């Protein structure tokens, strides 16, 4: 690597008195006094969440109101801090979504363990779990900080679905061809 000698000039008399520098600094800070604040007054003003933000993990419905999770437990296995607990359950044959075969009976995410890494969202084959915009989780007890299935769906809501893969599969079966 080439050696670049940096010329270090001795300080001039004005610089050694510190005064021009201090005056310049005072000018800068005076400018800032009259500038508008750059802070948000938090509880009233909320920050805009950028796209791709990883907030609290949530479960979502598809536009037909079917819960998308099929309790395959991949997220439970991939979760590095082991924050997810899934109890799989079957689906009543009378249910319109009976062809999906499984849905979680209980789905718990312990937000005291969750590290917001987003691996659950990445691994989910059903696009059922998303880290959405919610960033503030508080509670008075440890139990309150565990999100159960009902809470997770409340937080998640409904997201658009590009595939409707289970409907396609059902239709294909009804036409007699294995997809």
């Amino acid at each position, binding site marked *: 690597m080439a050696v670049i000698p940096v010329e270090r000039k001795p300080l001039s008399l004005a610089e050694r008195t510190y005064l021009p520098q*201090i005056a310049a*600094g005072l000018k*800068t*800070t005076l400018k800032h006094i009259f500038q508008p604040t*750059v802070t948000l*007054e938090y509880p009233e003003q909320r920050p805009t969440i950028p796209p791709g933000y990883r907030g609290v993990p949530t479960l979502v419905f598809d536009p037909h109101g079917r819960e998308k999770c099929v309790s395959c437990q991949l997220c439970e296995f991939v979760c590095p801090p082991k924050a997810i607990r899934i109890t799989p359950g079957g689906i009543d044959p009378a249910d319109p979504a009976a062809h999906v075969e499984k849905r979680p009976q209980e789905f718990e995410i312990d937000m005291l363990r969750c590290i917001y890494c987003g691996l659950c969202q990445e691994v989910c084959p059903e696009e059922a779990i998303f880290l959405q915009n919610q960033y503030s989780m508080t509670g008075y007890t440890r139990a309150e900080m565990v999100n159960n299935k009902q809470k997770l769906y409340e937080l998640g809501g409904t997201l658009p679905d590009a595939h409707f893969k289970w409907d396609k599969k059902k239709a294909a079966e009804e036409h007699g061809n294995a997809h």
Partner: protein
Amino acid sequence: MFDFYFNFPLWIRMPLQGVAVILVLFPLAAACSMAERKICAWIQDRPGPNRTIAPILAWIPGMGVLQRLGLFQLAADGGKFVFKEDPVPGHVNKLYFIAAPILAMIPALTTVALVPFGAYLDSAGRLVPIMLANVDVGLLAVFAVSSLGVYSVILAGWASNSKYPFLGSVRASAQLISYELSMTLSVLPVFLLVNRPGGQGTLSLVDVVAMQSGGWHGFAAQSWHGLWGVFYLPVSAFIFLVALFAETNRQPFDMPESEADLVGGFHTEYGAFKWSLFFVAEYCHMIVGSGVFCLLFLGGWNLLPWLPLAKLAGLLGVANHPLLMGLLGIVIFLGKVAAFIFFFMWVRWTIPRFRYDQVMKIGWQRLLPLAIANLVVYALAIAWLQPRTP
């Protein structure tokens, strides 16, 4: 109108006046801490403390403005300091540990007695200063008493029996001794100008203001007296200003605290009310120091150069009302002091702290020779130019 008051015996009047001044100075010093936080916030593009309000006051219209200014935060902080537990660490020397904050307050509140903050015309047409003790030693007494403040810092550091407070107090004592010399030398030219040969010698701050209270007499030598000290003694004013920053332990000379390298400096072991006393004392020193600077170099209670208070009062038609004229003088003076305190805070949040060796170098190798040279030059110039006749 107020004759009944002046007929009181002195032993009633003096404590009353003293308590009145302290009752103004103490909250003013506390308010400075809030001003400090607000100015710091504004310089850093933040709003600063603006949430606290007493619920019973919230319905009054206009309270929102005071809330945004953090006035209730100040009250809440003060209340917290009074009521919170005040632990005394086990390893300290209890007597001196408790004496230190008290000792900090005494000189801080004493010096204000010697500072005039306004003036009015009495029935004979003489200008009477408003102050607690109009003594001839004036500024000398201010210097003497305010430099006692360093004892509280030394005592606090020593009694804390722990190394950071000790280092802080050692630095404080060295710094205060170093800058006191330059400070005293820098004001000597002012008094060389005040004390004409043949006249009665004085160190009174009132006479310094009187010297700066001339009117406009055209481009004649007499008009010099309308100018303020800072215009014809700029070097003195500069040295006094720098030394004032050092004496009040303000950035960039806050060696005794220097929280980055000494935890909290001399008050590391202090908490609650005792800790707040140190800060009120520091702000009292700042207020009194700013006041002395305004008196020496910024014309005291005169609004503008060549516009002395007596003339201004005449223009406003309050020259015959001692109370109104006194208030006018006090408002002008306090306005200058407030502007100066803003300057203190502005500087604090602008520049970083000097290294300790730089502080010593500036004090002994730069400021002191400059002060001596300044004194010699002005002494010769005054001897040369001042008219001989008294």
